[in-house]
């Protein structure tokens, strides 16, 4: 992207840069009014953008065309949607339970029917599917590792029986295997966070024209 040329964009670029420095004055220096100012700016912007995009325009886009075509039944979800706002009143809070009931029913109904195959059955099947014919020793080792690892890790989450005897050994192995998994997860977290921060470092230089846009 070339460096912006329109005055509004150049101004915007510098505003963005300054706001970034205000936020980073918190970790790099200490909490101060500039940081608070930038933080509140963000919340104000976020709330406005969220309301414009979700509750207002998307709702109109979704319900206006069918209503105009005479689909009166669309009035029901609109009323239910506004009933949610009774959550804000201590006295009439119970009214909001009806829309919540629909949301909970749909959410959990879909969620529960959805997890059965990919989260449970597919995982069991994948664990017990042996490597393809012609597989080497490494593939068999990985097959054994994953199967025993999964069994022990699941066993670790047996919560209403004491882990005694042989089960105690298995669950200890299970916990170590979980730790290996969390270690890999930790490694990926570092990748994510550092990618984010490097984006900011790059932006810092780009605005100053030290690095190319």
């Amino acid at each position: 992207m070339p460096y912006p040329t329109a005055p509004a964009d150049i101004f915007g670029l510098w505003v963005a840069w300054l706001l970034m420095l205000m936020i980073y004055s918190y970790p790099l220096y200490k909490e101060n009014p500039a940081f608070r100012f930038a933080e509140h700016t963000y919340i104000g912007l976020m709330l406005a953008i969220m309301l414009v995009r979700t509750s207002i325009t998307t709702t109109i886009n979704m319900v206006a065309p069918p209503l105009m075509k005479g689909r009166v039944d669309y009035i029901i979800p609109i009323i239910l949607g506004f009933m949610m706002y009774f959550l804000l009143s201590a006295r009439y809070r119970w009214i909001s339970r009806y829309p919540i009931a629909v949301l909970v029913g749909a959410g959990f109904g879909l969620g529960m029917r959805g997890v059965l195959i990919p989260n449970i059955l597919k995982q069991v099947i994948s664990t017990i599917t042996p490597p393809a014919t012609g597989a080497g020793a490494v593939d068999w080792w990985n097959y054994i590792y994953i199967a025993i690892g999964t069994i022990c890790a699941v066993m670790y989450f047996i919560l209403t029986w004491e882990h005694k005897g042989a089960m105690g050994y298995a669950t200890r192995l299970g916990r170590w295997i979980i730790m290996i998994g969390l270690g890999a997860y930790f490694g990926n977290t570092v990748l994510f966070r550092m990618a984010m921060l490097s984006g900011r470092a790059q932006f810092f230089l780009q605005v100053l024209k030290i690095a190319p846009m």
Partner: protein
Amino acid sequence: MAIIVSGRGMALVILVLSYILFYVFMYLGRKGKEIPVRTLPPMAAIPEGIGRAAEMGRPVMFTPGIAGDLNDPTQGPQVLAAISILGYIARECARTGVKLDVFMPIPTALPLTEETLRTAYMAEGKPEEFSPDMIHFIAGQSPYLTAVLGYFQRERPATNFLIGGFYYESVVMGEGGNTIGAFQIGGTANTHQMPFLVATCDYVLLAEELYAAGASISKDPDILGCLRGEDIMKFILIALMIVGFLLGFARNPVLINVLRW
């Protein structure tokens, strides 16, 4: 079988079986059957942590993280479990006379927290020692962090409990507590924060362990019954996996075909 969509039969079996088990054990739990929760090392370490604070004459800190609004279906249960555990911590503190500070960033959880603490002090016969000032309510992630870090430096708590639904404050508070040499017990069901708690805390409650720990304190028969039901389902899965694993060496696909039904 022409009524059930092909490939989904086994899923239906699992669903129905789980529900039956949940219901049976919830029913038995309500009838008075005791369902124990296994020894969880972090829970066993709570008295140790509070005893340490008593010896050193320093306070104990508890915070449930900022992620969990009580009405949020994924984060809320974590905070509820954490508040049950807080009840236990508060009783121990009341018994040993250790000062307890609770940092609570979630407005919706405030009344319940206060109630829990009051009940705990009452149960130990020291209602006069409870005061609402023990609960420090600070909204907003960065003011909350600043307050907790400042508190660490000022009061140097002997033991920190970081139990609940966390976002990135887990890494900051874990580090802050570590540098003042506090004994730390963590717990969360948010996978993305578990590595940080493991790396910075002495004991950690992972995922479902948190709910189990909460239920072991609150003795809620519904949650305990469901946990027992889940455990039986897990045993069934483990058995299936062991059989399938052995069949795998013989390349026998019979179990896989059954599971694909």
